[in-house]
């Protein structure tokens, strides 16, 4: 069995894993990225549309272009990578984290690492997860699988398509398949507003005249061998109006109904998971409850922009390097979700430095204010022209915001509540 030793093992070679590893290297730590696929890049490799990199690189790139730039950075920093290698298990053995991976080239590889960065990305929710009844014909795909089949393998899954869910991947596939000669008969969304980015609604649906059925539930999938149609039903004032159900004939159904962080490896290692994100609970250093195990990117929480993934992963790499050097925060304050906030990441802040916090709104609202409060006292507020659940928000809190007015009462138990009002 091949045996390796590194300061840090990074699980997953997408945007997050590569960025975290590059940061670790630039701070003098040895880092190994382990990636299941034959090449680095992760999910970006199948996103051949533009819309990546405006924040990170100040230019509009396709997914593979963005991945390439990140990879160049990582390679320049001197990371090592094992591709085609699936991580099977992470264990604690004799004071080390030990990562077991397998590939056809090397057999099983055993990597001893002082720190581990989790960057396994996410998977797509599927038909079973949203419990659509009906028969089980061929022709039902998750949108990401269809994207892969079309963009990388060059196959068209079907000609007459209905897309369930108005997530970005589904919207982008509506455009992609329209370009390839398919007819998109509609996008069905249970919520009263679309869950994808506004620019995608305009560019992928409106420009192609594709109907968007908001407040509609998919209530049945029909077809014996291959899909023949989907039944959709309006939702009015919270009631599902089965009396108003109707069918859209089609041969293909694509599901774009959300992503779930892939945390089975983490769970088996004993990492505690936040039910609001399905990702690990992390402290102000993006460290999980297991010392030396960090998380970033889509495995921590689902991001809509890869630029944020890269930013967050860089911080995770830096925190891991600090931890390897023996540094740790003097104290941390707990973050608490206030009104209209679904989750906050991380869940703690270090009052002695700048902290970046990502959060998601539970509401669609114009003219909203993001507020941070300690003991009811507003310490920071930021105006937002518009907030909605599908667009991630962030704010920073630094020593100034988090300083106790009266130093003597400064306590470990102080909480920072963040709300959208």
């Amino acid at each position, binding site marked *: 069995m091949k045996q390796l030793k590194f300061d840090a093992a990074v699980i997953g070679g997408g945007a997050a894993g590569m960025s975290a590893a590059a940061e670790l290297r630039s701070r003098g730590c040895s880092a190994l990225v382990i990636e299941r696929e034959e090449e680095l890049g992760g999910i970006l490799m199948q996103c051949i549309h533009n819309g990546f990199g405006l924040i990170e690189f100040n230019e509009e790139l396709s997914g593979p272009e963005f991945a390439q730039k990140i990879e160049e950075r990582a390679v320049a920093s001197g990371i090592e990578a094992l591709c085609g290698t699936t991580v099977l*298990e992470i264990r604690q053995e004799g004071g080390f984290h030990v990562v077991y991976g*397998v590939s*056809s080239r090397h*057999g099983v590889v055993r990597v001893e690492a002082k720190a581990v960065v989790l960057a396994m990305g996410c998977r797509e929710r599927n038909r079973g997860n949203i*419990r659509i009844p009906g028969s089980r014909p061929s022709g039902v795909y998750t949108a*990401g699988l269809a994207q892969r089949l079309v963009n990388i393998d*060059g196959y068209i899954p079907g000609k007459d398509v209905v897309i369930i869910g108005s997530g970005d991947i589904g919207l982008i596939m509506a455009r992609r398949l329209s370009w*390839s000669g398919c007819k998109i008969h509609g996008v069905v969304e249970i919520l009263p507003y679309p869950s994808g980015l506004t620019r995608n609604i305009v560019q992928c649906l409106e420009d192609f005249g594709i109907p968007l059925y908001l407040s509609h539930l998919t209530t049945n999938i029909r077809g014996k061998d*291959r899909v023949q149609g989907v039944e959709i039903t309006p939702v009015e004032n919270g009631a599902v109006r089965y009396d108003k159900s109707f069918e859209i004939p089609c041969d293909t159904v694509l599901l774009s109904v959300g992503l779930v962080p892939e945390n*089975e490896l983490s769970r088996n290692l004993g990492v505690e998971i936040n039910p609001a994100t399905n990702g690990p609970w992390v402290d102000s250093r993006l460290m999980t409850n297991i010392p030396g195990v960090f998380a970033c990117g889509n495995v921590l929480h689902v991001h809509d922009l890869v630029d944020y993934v890269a930013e967050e992963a860089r911080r995770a790499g830096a925190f891991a390097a600090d931890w390897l050097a023996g540094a740790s925060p003097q104290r941390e304050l707990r973050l608490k979700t206030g009104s209209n906030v679904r989750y906050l990441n991380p869940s703690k802040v270090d009052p002695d430095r700048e902290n970046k916090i990502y959060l998601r709104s539970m509401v669609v609202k114009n003219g909203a204010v993001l507020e941070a409060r300690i003991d009811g006292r507003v310490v920071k507020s930021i105006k937002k022209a518009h907030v909605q659940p599908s667009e991630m928000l962030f704010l920073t809190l630094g020593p100034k915001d988090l300083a106790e007015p009266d130093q003597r009462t400064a306590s470990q138990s102080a909480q920072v509540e963040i709300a959208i009002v």
Partner: protein
Amino acid sequence: MTDRTGRYDVAIIGAGVCGANIARKLSQYELKVALLEKEIDVSLGTSKANSGIVHGGFHDNKKYLKARLELKGALMFERLHDELDFPFERCGIVVVALHEDELRTIEQLYLQGVENGVIGIEMCSRERMLELEPKLSSDTVGGLYAPSGGIVEPYRFVFSLVESARKNGVDLVTEFAAALARREGDDWIITALDGREIRAKYVVNSAGLFADTLSKAFGAEDFAIKPRKGEYYLLDKMTKAKPNRVIFPVPTAVSKGMLIIPTVEGTVLIGPTASAVEDKEDFSTTRVELEKILQSARTMIPSISETDVITSFAGLRPVCGEDFIIELSAKAPHLVQVAAIQSPGLTASPAIGEYVKDLLKKDGLRLVEKPDWDPCVEKVRRARDLSPWELDEMVAKDPAYGDIVCRCERVSEAEIVKAIRAGHTTLDGIKYVTRAQMGRCQGGFCTYKIIKILMRETGMGYEEVTKRGGGSYVLRGEL
């Protein structure tokens, strides 16, 4: 067909768990046997979608043939498991009473179990039940425990049986939908929908839901099989609600009720419902029935959560009266009927194999044991069962063990290639044999990889790749 293979001693129609057990049993003797199946692969009927339980022998009275065969069949699983390498575990069964008055039924079941000779069956207090199954509702008042009950992966059982039968000379003919039968001399000529013919001296009708139509085609007994649908939810391995044993509610007059089943592979199955339907090919799930499942399961284990659901499916019970129909036809010569095999058909199936062999013998079939009959099939090593050290050794022998194709169920390319080479050339076939596409992502990540391997191994074009044969094509065009 007839000119190539000539005349068969026995043709078995239907490759479900009954047909497969009968075929394997007959493969022990110097006989030419054909196993005919209308679908592209075996085990795609009722034997695919059921609860997968080796029943505990206390639900039915011994006056029924089904109870006698259940008791006998249940005892045969250890040996079959050793020989045939399918997932099986004697995990035990509990029946939980949630009200005082249900305890009376529990007692009746207990007495019936004792009378049936069930080993180790016991009545349990509330405390004992909660000790056995700590996740049970605090409303539990007591129950029954049958340690001999078990769980099996039903389709893997059928695949192994068929593999064993084929290894010992049985011909499997798939996509052969038997439609007509006529006598020619002393033989039956069976014609398929596509015109192919098979000649055989004896015929076994184990066509499941369609045994009634088949019976008529042979001019035999007139009975009607009515489908009764059972719907299920499958829960992720990671669910916190997984019990240690199969959990039954107290049965009602019509059914054994909706169960919570820890499957051999670590997932949890909840269901089945019971509703009469008309269409024998209607395997759809319905909103109304699915809602009942979660409700019912939660009365027993309250922590069951809908966020753990990874898929739903339905199976059809072939219903006709109260008991199995397993007999020599009184109207058509040399025809054995194996019909109305509803629950506990899976449990009873190994005993059904023996029983049908005896019926054939009684009807004049000469049985001479093969000296070289080999009861065992090759045990496929599976990446998910191996320690890192064992896996390393396997990769050294066959590098394809190092390519993990299905991440959720940890299935290597080597296992997928083996399944394809054994004749499972559809996405569903590969799924049921290897578990790839069967985990929490339901094929979201691995389907494209499997398509590629399938095309490479078989030389199929993309348009020939199907989910389960027929019109279930997967891809519609190329860019």
